[in-house]
């Protein structure tokens, strides 16, 4: 049942660009991007229980690495891949430095990373264009073709993230993450090398986000520091995971889709009060559905309603 559902979903998503117009394809690309962000945050925030606010930092690094490489004539696919790699390395190094912090202090340290990177990019205008922003070379292909290219690329990254999440969840790694989340001291005594595991979780939360950032940069053609190091890019995935269910494999995707739907409907229909309406919905969801799992119990759904 579960496998059939996934298969149907993948086929439908693969066929989407042949049926939807450019706007739908664009929206679907955002949906894939949100899924990557939410799934990625879930590694460190949901599974390992460390409230990371660093998503925007990884996204921004990816966007700028991708943009700089492409501006220097590197093939876009290679640039995206390199962006993910750099984000991964950065997360591994920073993780070593700040993962010994707990709770609030870790949250703040990860948030500060976003701020520092934004300022660093802003002031190194020789390489990054600083406050003037950066233009990424436009691919010389048709509107429809470029729309499809970015959609499928984002889709592939989302699938990769999902596959990794599923694998991690059922492996020893996922068990280790959950141990850390439950009780880190006890995990250490059980022989879980918590420092190593936390660093892995943090790095996993970076690599795909970095790739998504690079694809995003190529897709919108123009980036500037306040946009790719946007604090909302950090907060939105958290809200998505809360909506969908923390620490699960499919929860973040459900949350991402639901969040995008809310955002889009509200944004289209309320010209000047959309953020208030979005705020109200978030408040209601937190107050009345604090466990996430939007609308229906999708895990039971996939299991075929067995009790």
């Amino acid at each position, binding site marked *: 049942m579960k496998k059939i559902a996934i298969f149907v979903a993948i086929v439908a998503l693969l066929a989407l660009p042949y049926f939807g*117009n*450019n*706007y739908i394809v*664009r929206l679907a690309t*955002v949906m894939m991007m949100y899924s990557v962000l939410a799934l990625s945050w879930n590694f460190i925030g949901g599974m390992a229980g460390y409230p990371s606010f660093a998503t925007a930092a990884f996204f921004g690094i990816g966007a700028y690495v991708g943009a700089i490489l492409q501006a220097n004539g590197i093939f876009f696919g290679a640039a995206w891949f390199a962006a993910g790699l750099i984000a991964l390395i950065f997360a591994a190094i920073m993780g070593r430095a700040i993962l010994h912090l707990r709770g609030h202090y870790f949250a703040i340290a990860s948030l500060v990373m976003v701020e520092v990177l934004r*300022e660093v990019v*802003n*002031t190194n205008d020789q390489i990054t264009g*600083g*406050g*003037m*922003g950066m*233009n990424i070379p*436009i691919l010389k292909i048709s*509107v429809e073709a470029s729309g499809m290219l970015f959609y499928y690329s984002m889709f592939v990254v989302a699938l990769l993230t999902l596959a990794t999440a599923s694998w991690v969840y059922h492996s020893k790694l996922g068990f280790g993450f959950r141990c850390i989340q439950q009780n880190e001291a006890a995990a250490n005594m059980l022989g879980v090398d918590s420092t190593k595991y936390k660093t892995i979780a943090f790095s996993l939360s970076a690599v795909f986000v970095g790739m998504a950032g690079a694809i*995003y940069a190529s897709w*919108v*053609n*123009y*980036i*500037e520091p*306040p*946009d790719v190091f*946007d604090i909302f890019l950090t907060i939105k995935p958290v809200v998505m995971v809360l909506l969908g269910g923390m620490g699960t494999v499919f929860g973040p995707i459900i949350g991402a889709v639901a969040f995008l739907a809310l955002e889009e*409907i*509200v*944004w*289209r*229909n*309320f*010209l*000047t009060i*959309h*953020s208030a309406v979005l705020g109200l*919905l978030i408040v*209601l969801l937190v107050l*009345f*559905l604090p466990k996430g799992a939007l*609308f*229906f119990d999708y895990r039971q759904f996939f299991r075929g309603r067995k009790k």
Partner: protein
Amino acid sequence: MKKRALFTLAVSTLFVGLQAVGGSSSVQAAEKTIKFGAPLPLTGALAPEGIKIQRGLNLWMDTANAKGGIKVGNERYKIKIIYQDYQSNTPRAVQTAEKLITDDKVNFLFSPFGSGATKAASGVSEKYGIPTIASTASSEAVYNQGYKYLFGTFTPNITLTQPLTDMVIAKRPETKTVAILARNDFFPLAIANVMKKSAAKRNLKMVFFEKYAIGTMDHSSALVQMKAAKPDWIFATGYLNDLILIRNQMSELGVKVPVLTMVAGPAYKEFIDGTGKLAENITSAAWWHPAVRYNGKGVMGKTENFNKLFKAKYNLVPDYAEASATAAGIIFQLAIETAGTLDHKKVRDALATMDTETFFGPIKFGANGQISSLKPPVFQIRGGKPLVVYPDVIKQIDLKFGIK
């Protein structure tokens, strides 16, 4: 379980409600309309600017519709502007522009606010071949991308700084040194760099040149250093909040200077209200000023008439951003009426060959799409009002020196 079901019901009702709101607003009017898309920053950091553009566009739409709308061949079309908020977020502006084109199917597009967002979104309108007018983009980098469908109503930044420099030196030959403090942001930084060029051309010595980060809450260190450098001229760039803060801190720290120029803000009423007496003698330049006098074509007619209509609608004196937005609308209208069709290519050609005059000034676009015919006035705040000091034909008062 019951609670969850109830909640699901509540949320779905809400959804249906939201959809209904959306549905009713998109009901088509029976008469023929031309749809214009306007992605604007109506919330977020740039909201004040977005609202100005909206004011200008609405004035054009209402005035033109009251006179029967746009004449295309033998038919009359009503104007409908579809506004969409992009929350002061540039990528979102690009997304919004594309949504307006592909989803709302607008015929023509107004650019988002400022050079940065205009440059970013111009790729989209070029891709779809939608004629687009930018009412607030001045940096040449925006127009030098080789695009065919983008037109702008602001002349390059150098047309602001060069007359200013020439005039300051002509009236006060002992001016030798200049200090620049710039916000590290697209337009404020671009104009600061151009000012540097203008100053170098006139052999002014640069004694201080620093950038400050967006969101800076204190300028005292920079100002104290500037004070120590004793410049003849301070040139500060940023947006309203930055400039109000800088002016107040200058006064707090006793920074006195013969010439103080600020861009872009002093033209706005909010700046003068926010600085009070401290605004006195600040100079600035802008692409338009209510004191200019043009015998304009199009629904607004003469500049005096535009000022009057604006005052009647909003009870405000228009500033250059609002005027430019209205002008962008009129330019579209004139081009469509000349072309006699809604065909994108033909309207684009009508824009490219346009040579006319509006309340905003003479309108003629260069080969890159940027306007080439405007002569931006220089003005100084005197007695709480921005008064023109240059060019001589519309001069209202003589330039005065000394900032306390």
